[in-house]
């Protein structure tokens, strides 16, 4: 349903060029949940934004993308406009910041309904109440008149989710949907996401820095580091038999669910790997070649792939 090929995102300032994402390719099928994991700065959020046409205007996007059988043009804003909120729903990280503080949550959820489905405000309100009940925002009839600051973080994220799925999108992109929430609330939100995918046979792109979250939900997992995909495989493969040293490090940090991810930032001090492997500077197993040459993507059995010189 969604296929991305050779996605590249570049930011160029006066005289320096920064590649946030390089040569990323993947695809998602209906009913499938694809997890993208990686630390902050790995390019996973940029990828999500690119897939919705929401990148800041100074970002330059290359590559090709097709969605529901149509080729998408990254520059064509009106094409995205029609899809966002109707065919593609998006949930962001910080629900408190993502809700307009001056409008009632009901109004904000109703927006896509009025916009894409052509409902009258009255009909949209009824639909919003239904959505709120379905997502456990109770009492829904009153809640729609509340302002964001009157809701808890979990409720706010449910509201965001309600807005994202209001028009029953085929693709749901959830960018760190639970990061800002309590652990107990996390599970509820993840369950709601899963229910939606299950009930509507939609595709879900779940983006998180937390392998634990990914492990709960995803079918397939992409591990991103430094703007590239370093490893890809089924959730079972990644969790049980990680190949790439970076994935192993991510896994190693997993048991402390409640603590922020702490990867050694500069393990190999003084190393620069310009043009080499993106992880070389921190890799415990690096060799000379890692510093000089970008590792090629190796396709392995059962659809796995990885990019590492030492394997």
């Amino acid at each position, binding site marked *: 349903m969604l296929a991305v090929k050779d996605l590249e995102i570049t930011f160029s300032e006066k005289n320096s060029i920064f590649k946030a994402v390089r040569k990323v390719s993947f695809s998602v099928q209906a009913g499938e949940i694809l997890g993208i994991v990686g630390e902050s700065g790995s390019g996973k959020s940029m990828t999500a934004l690119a897939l919705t046409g929401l990148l800041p205007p100074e970002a330059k996007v290359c590559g090709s993308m097709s969605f529901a059988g149509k080729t998408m043009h990254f520059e064509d804003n009106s094409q995205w*406009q029609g899809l966002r*909120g109707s065919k593609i729903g998006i949930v*962001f990280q910080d629900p408190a910041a993502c809700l307009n503080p001056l409008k009632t949550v009901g109004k904000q959820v109703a927006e896509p309904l009025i916009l894409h489905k052509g409902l009258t405000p009255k009909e949209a309100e009824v639909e919003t109440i239904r959505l709120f009940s379905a997502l456990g925002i109770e009492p829904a009839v009153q809640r729609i008149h509340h302002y964001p600051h009157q809701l808890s973080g979990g409720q706010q994220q449910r509201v965001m989710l309600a807005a994202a799925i209001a028009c029953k999108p085929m693709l749901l992109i959830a960018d760190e949907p639970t990061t800002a929430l309590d652990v107990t609330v996390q599970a509820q939100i993840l369950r709601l996401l899963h229910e939606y995918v299950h009930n509507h046979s939609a595709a879900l792109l779940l983006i998180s820095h937390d392998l634990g979250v990914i492990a709960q939900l995803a079918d397939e997992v992409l591990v991103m580091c430094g703007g590239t995909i370093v490893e890809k495989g089924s959730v079972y493969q990644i969790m049980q038999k990680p190949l790439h040293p970076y994935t192993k490090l991510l896994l190693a940090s997993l048991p402390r669910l409640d603590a922020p991810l702490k990867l050694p930032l500069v393990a190999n001090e003084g190393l620069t790997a310009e043009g080499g492997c993106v992880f070389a500077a921190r890799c415990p197993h690096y060799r000379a070649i890692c510093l000089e040459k970008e590792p090629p993507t190796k396709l392995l059995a059962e659809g796995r792939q990885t990019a590492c010189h030492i394997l």
Partner: protein
Amino acid sequence: MIFQLVRRFTQTLLVLFGVSVATFLTMHWAPGHPLQANPELRLDPTAVERWLQLRNLDQPLPAQYLSWLSRMLRGDFGQSLLYNRPVIELIRERLPSTLLLTVTAFLIGLFLALVVGIYVAKKQNSWVDRMVQVYSLAGISVPGYWLGIVLIICFAYRFPLFSAVGMRTPGDGSLPDILQHMVLPLIVMVFHNFAYYVRHVRSAVLNVLNLDFVRAAKARGLTDKQVMLWHVLPNSAIPIVTIAALSLPVLFTGAMMAEQVFAWPGIGRFIVTSTMARDYPVIMTVNLYTAALVAIANFLADVLYLFIDPRLRVKA
């Protein structure tokens, strides 16, 4: 809520009282009196003493202040020492022409600033944006007096399209006549207003544009226009309302420079001449009136904030 209002009101009264004492003292501590304020006045020293006596200006300061205060509390703002007429009457005569000019300039300036400010905020760092930024700096620093004279030379002399003096042609005073008299002073005032407002509008909108909920709104499929109208502008309103509210007292005290250059018969000029003439009752009244306006403007701004932002409406 009521407690807050009462507290606010008391604060305002205290401020007004402080303003009145401060004005009174500074006015009376400065050397000289109204008849000495103008070197050209022809005076008889004995008659001047009688003049002071008849107006109780020979009394000790505290007595003068108390009598002024008691009269003021009864709604009597006294007589102008210069014009020998009730101060209120003099202000009332001049206020409408001032409001006509200042409110129009304010509305035009704010409207232009909103249109242009929003446009350049969207096109941040484009050449239009850069030009507007340069202009908003220059516009504030260009002396209005100079601009006024240039306009008069251009449009009242070289190409006599508009009148440069006063509010109406003597003997005329029809609406179109007044309007064409307004054009040049308005240009000068809007030139400044706009420069001042546009940078505030621009930065207010820019601040909001970078917030997460704007992206979230776009993610729901709203067009740029809808995002701007439904989400960005309401959130930019608070700083803009603040700026607008701060301008409110100025609307009522006139545009001294424009009134001076274009001989506009407004209250700004009146305040200047009264101050130069040491016309105590007028200055006292004007200061109180300005202080009251500032208080009212602040109060209005607070009410507007409540109206705009639900977070402030929380019952304490």
